[in-house]
């Protein structure tokens, strides 16, 4: 199935994209997608999205269809869901 990823902040810089479509299996959670994006875009993206233990950073806001989700949630995504990835920003 196909989902859409919307990148913000440094995630947009490192992916070089505002958004993209991704083909995923029907059993994936938001955290699974984050692991895949970290692998796809290499070390800098991996550092941005994952802890040293390789789990999604809890300082990165994840939202599915404009509702934030806990990265520990095992809820699976659905066809055409939009996963927004918002690393923490504090510019003043």
């Amino acid at each position, binding site marked *: 199935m196909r989902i859409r990823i919307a990148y913000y902040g440094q995630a947009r810089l490192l992916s070089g994209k505002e958004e993209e479509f991704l083909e995923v299996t029907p059993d994936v959670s938001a955290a699974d997608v984050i692991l895949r994006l970290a692998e796809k875009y290499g070390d800098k993206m991996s*550092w941005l999205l994952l802890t040293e233990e390789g789990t999604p*950073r809890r*300082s990165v*806001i994840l939202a599915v269809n404009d*509702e934030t989700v806990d990265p520990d949630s095992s809820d699976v995504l659905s066809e055409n869901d939009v996963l927004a990835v918002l*690393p*923490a*920003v504090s*510019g*003043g």
Partner: protein
Amino acid sequence: MIVVKRIGMALTEEKLATYEWQIWEKDFGEEGQKKLKEASALVSRVGGLGSPVAYALAAAGIGKLVLAHGGEVKYSDLNRQILMTHDWLGKPRVESAVRRLKELNPRIDIEGIPENVTEKNAFSLVERVDIVFDCAPLFQERFALNRACVRLRKPLIDAAMYSMEGRLTTILPGKTPCLACIYPEFPETWKREFPVFGAVSGIVANLAVCEGIKVLAGFGTLLAGTMLQYDARNMEFRKLKLKRNKNCSICSDSPNGICA
């Protein structure tokens, strides 16, 4: 000519004339202006974001501003920190801010604190105001303000930007997620230096002041439990529904919540 209907005598003729055009806003009115006049706000740093926040609050006629910002004016401040001027290079930023705001609106009280918010001073700074505007570039300062606001039950307008993007949410302690609910762990990936246009900071700053005026005057719909994300690159706004963390280390009712 003043055309507003008078309610009581709290506003002088001069003040009514000064604020007349915003008093025409029917949900605000003279009552709203009085509430604003009686209110006080802390602005944490008057840099790219805090400068236009303080400017808009002063122009609107808030009763008292407390500005907290350390350091001296540098050349690299001047593309966005609209309360800093060339003739003040090398001198304290907060003095420049106070000077400029008094030129704009001599009717309001302004207190300049020549230091940034820390865990040590956050509580005493928040204690003396009705509302807080978080415009700091470091999460240490944001978390210190969040903790103090939750403990003191003071509304916190949290505004931030990066590149061509901005984020804004209104935190009402006990009712909405707090900053520690939104970021349950310290954001190690955030770096002190970031790309910034003054215009992008100015957008989120003025949206933040709209939120603050609505909180203080009691009208409109707030970004309470909602994060506004805007993207000036393609002029898109997105609203994200936030969730309270029932195990939040700051605001939850659980034993984890140190301020609950």
